[in-house]
């Protein structure tokens, strides 16, 4: 047990902190609106220019070869500085780890630098109208185009976050027409400007155009759009969901900084005199702290080479519930001002999605019960 950082890690923290303090933009419009997305892109490109966009990646792809500990430090400093949610997250946090694991050298060299530079902007095409929790019910299909040396994609994806603003989508398509369920699926990476692709953005709960439907009608993609092998999409996709549920998408930094802001709000709003309100604030703060400790333990395991596996469902349950409680508490402290459009009410609406996306919490509980506790499936 050694909960201290090395001098090199502390120096890394200091460098990140100084740069972030000098450069973090404030009051950007929502990254889920056309106007805001453009502002966020500017920020993403500033991050990239200073090599803070993808710190854990190799230098040749725009990173710093940072260790997983340094990555965690960067995340802490990022949210501590009040920097905005990453509009590039579905690329850099979800697709990229999958490309590092399954991509060919050519794919890595071609895709990763552009992703790091926010030149290619990626969205996630899992869900379909008939395939939500039941991802294996994927209907969108891929038909072999021998002459063209690629595939023809047809079908509909939905709930695609920031699909209207992105340039590319990764998703699952049924490549073996006779297949069922988890078999016969292939993981494709699709440029959204390909002929036959139509994207329609629509409003989320907060009214921003953060969702999109993506219609594919015989859209052609070349062979190198396949990640991880034809008909092997399910196991490739599971690697992505592991990142989504676990650490990469939601590091503790975000919740720690939100909890600190909640404590400040509580002090401002007289929670000292209100034992009930105080207790709820403390519970939220304790949960953020517990998530941090859990993460440090988990990163120790990862650094020692063990895989997180189904335990990433524990992360997802915990951070999503924590986020909701934290924001509910803030709104209660705000009282009559809770409904005003502002960071806490926006944060609350966003937190409400946490128990739904990345696999609903009911699905996560099934996974924890069956694969961590070993309860019978049927």
């Amino acid at each position, binding site marked *: 047990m050694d909960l201290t950082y090395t001098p090199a890690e502390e120096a890394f923290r200091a460098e990140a902190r100084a740069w972030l303090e000098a450069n973090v933009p404030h009051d950007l419009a929502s990254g889920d609106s056309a106007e805001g997305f453009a502002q966020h892109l500017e920020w993403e490109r500033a991050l990239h220019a200073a090599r803070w966009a993808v710190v854990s990646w190799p230098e040749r792809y725009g990173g710093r070869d940072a260790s997983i500990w340094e990555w965690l430090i960067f995340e802490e400093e990022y949210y501590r500085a009040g920097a905005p949610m990453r509009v590039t997250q579905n690329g850099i946090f979800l697709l990229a780890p999958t490309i590092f694991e399954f991509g060919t050298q050519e794919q890595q060299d071609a895709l990763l630098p552009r992703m790091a530079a926010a030149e290619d902007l990626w969205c996630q095409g899992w869900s379909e109208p008939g395939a939500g929790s039941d991802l294996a019910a994927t209907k969108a299909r891929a038909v072999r185009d021998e002459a063209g040396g690629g595939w023809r994609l047809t079908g509909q994806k939905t709930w695609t976050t920031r699909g209207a603003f992105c340039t590319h989508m990764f998703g699952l398509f049924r490549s073996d027409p006779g297949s069922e369920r988890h078999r016969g699926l292939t993981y494709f990476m699709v440029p959204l400007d390909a002929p036959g692709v139509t994207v329609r953005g629509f409003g989320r709960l907060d009214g921003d155009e953060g969702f999109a439907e993506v219609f594919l009608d015989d859209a052609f993609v070349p062979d190198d759009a396949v990640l991880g092998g034809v008909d092997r999409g399910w196991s490739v996709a599971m690697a992505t969901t592991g990142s989504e549920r676990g650490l990469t998408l939601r590091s503790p930094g975000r919740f720690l900084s939100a909890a600190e802001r909640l404590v400040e709000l509580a002090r401002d709003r007289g929670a000292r005199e209100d034992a009930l309100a105080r207790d709820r604030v403390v519970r939220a703060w304790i949960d953020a702290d517990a998530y941090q400790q859990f993460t440090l333990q988990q*990163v120790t395991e990862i650094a020692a080479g063990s895989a997180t596996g189904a335990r990433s469902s524990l992360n997802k349950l915990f951070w999503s519930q924590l986020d909701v409680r934290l924001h509910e508490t803030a709104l209660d402290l705000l009282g009559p001002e809770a409904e005003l459009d502002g960071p806490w009410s926006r944060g609350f609406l966003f937190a409400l999605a946490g128990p739904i996306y990345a696999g609903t919490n009911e699905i996560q509980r099934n996974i924890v019960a069956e694969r961590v506790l070993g309860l019978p499936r049927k």
Partner: protein
Amino acid sequence: MRFALNSDQAALREAVRDLLRAECPPAVVRAGWPGSEESDLARVRRVWDQLGEMGVLGAAVPEADGGLGLGAVALVGLLEEAGRAALPLPLMETAFVAGPLLAAAGEAALVERLAAGELVVGAALDGSGIVPFAQVADALIAGDARAPGGELRLLRPPAFAPLESIDGARGLGRVAADAGLVLDLDAAALAAAWERGALGAAAQLLGLGRALLALAADYVTERRQFGVAIGTFQAVKHQLADALLALEFAAPAVLRAAWSLDRGAGDAGRDVAVAKALASDAALQVAATALQVHGAIAYTVEYDLHLHAKRVWAGARAWGDADWQRTRVAAALGLLPEEALR
């Protein structure tokens, strides 16, 4: 940064776990209920002797005083194992609280006996005068380690009036506030003793919770209703998943608090409070869930579940319950004035 036990620490924990698994099955926990039909305190005491032979009892006593001088990080895992086994003896109070406390008070002769495994010590530092394990102890420490200007006293049985606990293994005794001899301790030693007790209690609660959850998971896999194992029902699965979630997020907080105590960190008191609050809540949740998913079988004293559950119901409130601990955290966060604490 490394959030894990080192290999020596892990090996010691494994050894204690193996010992308790072999030597402290539920029958021995039942034997530790003084005055019950199954009571066999000599048998229980043999487990103690074996822990003594491993050096566990003097583990927290400084090396200069004949102990192993191990820190809290090395020991919380052992206490978790004691909880898992529902060991019906005050390992936590003796090894984790009394050892260092008596050493700090200069009670060399007692410390020597304690480290040699000859002394079972019951302790209650919360001012209640209700001392767990008094009925099996050779020495008692009672008083108030939390009050400003508080003091602790050393008593020898039979200086107590027996009380009946819902958990017979707790062997409670009530002591008078002015009984015994005042131990020579400064405020820092008093505070440290309290923190160690609260942290040790949290560690035991984790172990108790883990045992209860394992029992419940096994049971719902075996028990069939409507032609299927009841563990296939989502209402059952989800309750158990939530129980595991609570435990898994309390456990790292306990280890971190141990680290903070060992380092004498300024935040150590807060970290202990976080750990105990999470562990108390988690253990209570697991106990309630384990009982519920068993149905009536767990509502008997014949089935073993109650041995652990009753220890949880007692232990969750001892050494500061979750509400009290959260008030301490509130104080550390500047959400209430320190004076308002008590």
